[in-house]
């Protein structure tokens, strides 16, 4: 059972890295970006190309994937997304769904529709036993990397000036602008960083989640669940939400395989009914 807990935590932390960019985007610009999963997919496929075909080692490959996806995010944000900020939520939904469709079809065209795998270094393969818990080496890596990322994010948010500017902008963009904070730049950088993280998550997660052109559609729901349940006013909310979902999903699929998938959706609906603004959102909204 502890193995399941371990696997669930790994899954949850991976979800968090994937989804936290979306959470901040939504909280910051009130923008519903359903195409977030496409960045994750991009990161995954970039790593595939780098590691499998170009012979780049695994860890540098991850870093490069992060960088390229972040740049991609920055580019798209400045050219396309910026035109859609002021539009209604319905328009944003339509726009990002359109982007998802385009990216899914494009990747299918370029890379083919079968599932792809990244060649993981042999040191990360297999499992070992620790106090009776089966520890997968790769999953351990995920927990460590994601844990470091989470701590880093928290430090940036609370300890740096950029972090305070970001928090101010999330809280009240109008007032933040009035204070001289360049909210547009804050957002561009945050969007790029969030997309980069998604790309990194996609690369890390290829082994566990399975990478194929339908990735954005398959996992979009999970990201959205993390964001809606966890709220958008902090990263603690999505973090805990991700862990809950990760553990619930893994445990559900193991203990009640017939209904495993329901557990997630039902939890989400119940939670949203009880607290429509998310578990951790502040009471007074925009």
């Amino acid at each position: 059972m502890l193995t399941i807990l371990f696997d669930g935590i790994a899954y949850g932390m991976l979800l968090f890295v994937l989804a936290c960019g979306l959470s901040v985007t939504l909280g910051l610009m009130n923008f519903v970006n359903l195409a977030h999963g496409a960045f994750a997919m991009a990161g995954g496929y970039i790593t595939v190309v780098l590691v499998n075909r170009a012979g780049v080692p695994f860890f540098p490959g991850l870093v490069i994937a992060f960088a390229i996806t972040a740049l991609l995010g920055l580019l798209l944000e400045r050219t396309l997304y910026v035109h859609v900020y002021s539009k209604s939520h319905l328009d944003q939904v339509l726009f990002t769904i359109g982007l998802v469709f385009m990216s899914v079809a494009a990747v299918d065209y370029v890379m083919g529709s079968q599932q792809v795998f990244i060649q993981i270094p042999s040191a990360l393969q297999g499992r070992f036993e620790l106090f009776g818990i089966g520890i997968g080496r790769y999953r351990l890596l995920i927990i460590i990397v994601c844990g470091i990322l989470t701590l880093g994010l928290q430090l940036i948010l609370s300890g740096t000036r950029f972090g305070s500017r970001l928090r101010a902008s999330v809280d009240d963009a109008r007032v933040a602008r009035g204070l001289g904070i360049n909210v547009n730049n804050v957002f561009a950088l945050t969007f790029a960083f969030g997309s980069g993280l998604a790309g990194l998550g996609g690369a890390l997660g290829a082994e566990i989640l399975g990478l194929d052109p339908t990735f954005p559609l398959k996992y979009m729901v999970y990201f959205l669940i993390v964001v809606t349940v966890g709220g958008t006013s902090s990263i603690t909310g999505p973090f805990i939400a991700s862990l809950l979902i990760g553990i619930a999903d893994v445990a559900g699929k193991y203990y009640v395989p017939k209904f495993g998938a329901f557990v997630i959706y039902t939890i989400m609906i119940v939670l949203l009914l009880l607290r429509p603004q998310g578990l951790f959102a502040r009471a007074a909204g925009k």
Partner: protein
Amino acid sequence: MDPGSIKQVSHHFANRARWSAMEYAFWLAALASIFVCGGYWTEISPLFANRHLILTEIAWLGLFALSLDLILGYAGIISLGHAAFFGLASYIAALLAKHAIITEPVLALVVSGFAAALLGFATSFLVLRGSDLTRLMVTLGVTLIMREIANQIPEITGGADGLQGVVIAPILGLFQFDIFGHVAYVYCLVVLFVLFLLARRIIYSPFGLSLRAVKGNALRSGLIGISVNGRLIAVYTLAAFYAGIAGALLAQTTAFASLDVFSFERSADLLLVLIIGGTGYLYGGLIGAVIFKLMQDWIANLTPQYWQFWIGLVLVLIVLVGRDRIGTATAMIRTSVQRAVSRLPVPALRVAAPPAEGR
């Protein structure tokens, strides 16, 4: 009391609801398509080839989009989960036929519709509160749950392969479905027309007016005595019924049901259909269905595997150009055509000028 004013008021309401020339034209064209597009006159010209198969798809897709318009265009609820009702009724209609529980198609249609309405009613409370995003999530969640249920009981639903072996009995015991799709098309068209008439009546009723108020300002509606939640539940259930009928039509005309009735792509495509045609005037779903299906057909012929890319591109472009600009453009086209037609020297077409404000 000024009798002149009272008359003015009554005329105003009567004119609002009057059938315009364009509406007559639309349904006459639909009626004509039964004969003109049936492949009966291919010796005269290949233009008259049998298009009833695609027209049948347009018919139930139009009905599906109409059902979404009821909640999106008239009540302001954004839903990504309308496919839940569509899919449920689809499976039920197929199962009723396959296991000969209800063999007469019209009866099975109505029963499936009511099943969808029941699901709609049961889930309506989910969309009463919460932001747009919450509603999106919750409606999407319901559809995904339905899909999982269908996936997990393959003994009943056929699972990923779909429900095979469905045989549809003749409509009313008289009209057997034929391989050319003639009976199917007339069936769908009649159902669409009847339900359209009903929707039209509802929209122009006091209830319909209160829906527009709720959409425009829910807070104020409550404070003039309108039960906002009651209205939303009612229209959501009605929309679920319509979506269910559309799904049952799909199952009955194809004698098949599969998991992709619940897919996210279906909900997304539906939004696109309605957006193309425009929300809030009842014909948006129908016109959007025509345009979407023709576009899809054309693109699929060019690139069968990647047509999703072009659909995505259309969505992106529509949003970037601006729905309201597209809406204003089409509205302008509509009113100018309407005026031109009403000037024709045909007395039957000379109806009251098109209403200036909301329909």
